[in-house]
């Protein structure tokens, strides 16, 4: 776990879902991001996705094996980030 700014948490995760970060997990991710107080950003190399935007998340086209970085910033960043990492790290489609 690295912290660059106060209240900013970054964690890396590798996609293991055989279908990659496809519509269903990305939808779960975006829905959850809309309900937390902090900003969520996902990085795929230089490519940046707003965690609340399904267009952005899907646009990452992250296949299995891709390494993504999740960044949470703002209130509750530390408590929130785990849920997002869990979604991305899930081997199947989360509920």
């Amino acid at each position, binding site marked *: 776990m690295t912290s660059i700014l106060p209240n900013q948490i970054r964690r890396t995760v590798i996609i293991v879902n055989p*279908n*990659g*970060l*496809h*519509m*269903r997990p*990305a*939808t779960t991710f*975006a*829905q959850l991001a809309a309900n937390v107080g902090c900003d969520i950003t996902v990085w795929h190399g230089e490519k940046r996705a*707003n965690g*609340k*935007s*399904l*267009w*952005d998340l*899907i*646009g990452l*086209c*992250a*296949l299995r094996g891709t390494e993504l970085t999740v960044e949470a910033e703002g209130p509750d960043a530390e408590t929130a980030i785990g849920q997002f990492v869990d979604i991305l790290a899930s081997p199947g489609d989360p*509920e």
Partner: protein
Amino acid sequence: MDIKHGIPASPGIAIGPALVLDTEGVHIPRRTVPADQIPGELARLQSALHQATEDSRRREQEMTTRLGKDIGKIFASHALLLSDQALRFDIEMLMRAESYSAEYAVSRCIRSRVKSLDDTGNEIAQRIRADFIDVEKQVLHRLLGARSDSLEIATQNVIVLANDLTPSETAIFNTKTVQAFATESGGATSHTAILAGALNIPAVVGLGKLLNDVSGGDIVIIDGYEGLIILEPDEPTLERYRERLRNETDSTDRYESLRDSEAMTKDGVTVRLLGNIEFPTEAAACIEKGASGVGLYRTEFLYVNKTTDPTEEEHFQAYRDVLSVMGSNRPVVIRTLDLGADKFSPASGTLHERNPFLGLRSVRLCLQNRPLFKTQLRAILRASCFGDLRIMFPMISTVLELRQCLSLVREVEEDLQDAGIDYKPNVPVGTMIEVPSAAIMADVLAKQVSFFSIGTNDLVQYTLAADRNNETVANLYSPVDPSVLRLIDSVSQIGIRQGIEVNVCGEMSGEPLYTPLLLGMGIRQLSATPRKIPEIKHLIRSLTISDAVRVAQDALQMETAREVTSYLRGQLRRFLPDDSE
């Protein structure tokens, strides 16, 4: 200026504004609005996005209840995409900066996202592409409302450009406004192309990627002779084509003088030239072009674009109309329903088939839907009193199928007799030979019927197992592939030996290149689109049967379709040295 080459599907020239359709719905033309209307456009956008989001949420609930969470979630995704703040922001920016209409800005924004997906070429991108397009459609639907059906709103003259057109789409074309069409996919003998020929409008198919380079309203030129579409034509090109368009009217009259002459070879052998028609209104064209009857009256138009199956009365009137135009001396061959596969009818609720061309279509469909089949047969038999009518069954693949069809005809005759309704007894019944199995068994089939009609389009595709609409294998599809020639020759010889007429319908019979070959194999009846008849007649009058026999003998010795084609080209130049085409 950009010239694209495709397959010429229906001859003619057209110049006009493009109406762009694609499989993904309406292609929105670039439209700007005056600055003072921008706030109104923004409000329209906001409301459309809101409504489309609500639509998706409703569908999410509905589907979750009906089909479960997984399916429901698809629509939850759509709702998220539709309510996305960044998307809305991008669209609004574009509208403010460029004064674009809401429709065009939506289309631009979503298409640019689709394009970046396509650029990655990765498998996730391929899977979600359809969702992005669907989302676009939903917003556009809300913005355009009932106006979204652009085929029907085409009130000015247009040239329709599409990835592909279904036959039913082609059928609703208003030929007063649709001057021509061009498609990215498709082959020369696709049903769409056949329909274009029947509607007598120029068409080019198989152009490959095209739609991204055209905007609605751009002036384009369609050259249906060469199979070209010219985008952004320059002034000299436009002038050249306008000139050709003016001359065209003259050249169609070129063989006009032959209308009343017989289709007789130089050595006195008569060939019967018949017309293929799709709609009753085309019967007049047959006579005008000098056809001695209708060799193929397709009846599918009665079924497509209908929500219910046609009534006996609708059938009857359509047949009687044609018979009354043709009179008592010109035969009219009515082909029973040849629906299925690519020509779907919403009424019959076609099941999903993995391999529709090898599935439940045509006479197979009829034999499994007896009431539907008998309705048509009753109408045909009733109409038989009004002229020289003949019945023909399509896609017969076994002797048993033919027997079943024949016994149904007898059954319907008995019903009519019992009801005291008039019909002509002993109406000639024939079968199409378009499945290789039927060609192989032709000697047995010949005992049951009074004529054969070789449907070359299907015979070619089934013999070579190549889909004529699939441009990646269309090169295999050739009516002069030696395998096909052997089948046609054998069927023709069986007809001669067993004393039944053998007709050839299908694209092959309308193509002068193949006429000498067919005559040389013993064919004495050709049924083609009426437009082609004068030209074919001119050619027949320019050769002798012994020429034709030599051509057939030579061609039947050859090993590849390419060899045969180039040989036939040389022969055609010999027979018609004055025709520079």
